[in-house]
């Protein structure tokens, strides 16, 4: 069973719909026991970094998530991916979960339209099981204004938008993060979610 963490941040039903469609058993959860008993965990999220972190703290799940992410497949999506890092700088500095080294900063470049909204091409950087079966010309759907700043070794795939934007990150063990929305990225996104389900 994949636990989708429901902490009041964003459209969790889209993630659920996609997993249901793929036949991957899942549940929306907001209690420790369900996260501990799950085979894998997904942390979704849209909105602002500090507000989401505050909501996550309010569920009392922060320590549980940190523990479980070292034992079983864990996928952060969009803001959920950003929360994986050590710090965010949206409306001031805010601590993240610190599962992967790095921080999250505003995307900036002259004339760059923000948010980065739409379909952008995945460029592979490091091998990652979530990218199994993904070709060289596949697009996924992004919508965000902040991006991760982390070591190349943690980047499985990136896209170009006013510079390199980490799209899929991985700690080399159980922790994965997708800046794009795999649940809204057509067949390519479904393949990536299916690959994640395959890690169980």
């Amino acid at each position, binding site marked *: 069973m994949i636990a989708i963490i429901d902490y009041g941040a*964003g*459209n969790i*039903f*889209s993630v659920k*719909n*996609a997993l*249901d*469609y793929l036949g991957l058993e899942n549940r929306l959860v907001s209690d420790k026991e369900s996260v501990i008993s799950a085979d894998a965990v997904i942390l979704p999220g*849209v*909105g*602002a970094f500090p507000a989401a972190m505050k909501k996550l703290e309010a569920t009392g799940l922060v320590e549980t998530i940190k523990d479980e992410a070292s034992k079983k497949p864990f996928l952060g999506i969009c803001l959920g991916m950003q929360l994986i890092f050590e710090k965010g700088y949206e409306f001031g500095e805010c601590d993240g979960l610190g599962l992967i080294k790095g921080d999250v900063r505003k995307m900036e470049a002259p004339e*760059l*339209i*923000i*948010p*980065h*909204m*739409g*379909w*952008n*091409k995945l460029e592979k950087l490091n091998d990652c099981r979530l990218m199994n079966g993904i070709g060289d010309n596949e*697009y996924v*759907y992004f*919508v*965000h*204004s902040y991006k991760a700043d982390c070591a190349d070794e943690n980047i499985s795939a990136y896209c*170009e*938008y006013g510079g390199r934007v980490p799209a899929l990150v991985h700690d080399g063990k159980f922790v994965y993060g997708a800046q794009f*929305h795999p*649940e*809204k*990225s*057509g*067949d390519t*996104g*479904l393949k990536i979610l299916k690959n994640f389900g395959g890690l169980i």
Partner: protein
Amino acid sequence: MLAKRIIPCLDVRNGKVVKGVNFEGIRDVGDPVECAEEYNKQGADEIVFYDITASFEGRGVFLDVVRETAKKVFVPLTVGGGIKTVDDIRETLRAGADKVSVNSQAVKNPQLIKDGADIFGSQCICVGIDAKKIADHKWTVYINGGRVDMGIDLIDWVHQIEKLGAGEICLNSIDADGTKEGFDIEMLQAVCDNCNIPVIASGGAGKINDFAEVFEKTGATAALAASLFHFKELTVQEVKTYCRAKNIIVR
């Protein structure tokens, strides 16, 4: 590189897809969930549902359509029409929409944009604008499906909504809508020059080159059409193949 988006729009009334010409002469054309699935197969980058039902009962049926579509179609869904309050936004997002499009109500109560962006994030607040030319390089904003001129300068409104936290603009030209003579290039470029958020071009698409033209001549990041796709004059795939041949990046 970011791909230009091709977005089919489905006007829905009482659970059925309809398409009006200049907002009048509406006729039924089919089941919205099936239409959305078909567009998804054709490669639509996003699908817009527009609720033109005026009744409370119709609203429930409409949200059921969104809910059913979200179970089968895994591209972003934008939902507009009849959204008046933060609770309406919440209900629509919960039904499976990724973004809401607010139009008349945002003009009457601009605070709705700010409240929506603060609570749900700018990324899900698309502001729809219906505008019409009144003088050389000057347009005003209309509400109620293009029927009421609010006398608000288009560019002033664009500046205001960006400040309030709108994540995207869907700009519909009343002059071009239904004419099939191409997008309103002049108005679109004026808006793109005056904001830093994505702009969707709407109104006027009639032939395949109109899509290439709007991307070549304006900063619009997406182009929307309804009747053209409904009546199968063009498929999304045909539009994309054409744009690709013109070196426009599409998915």
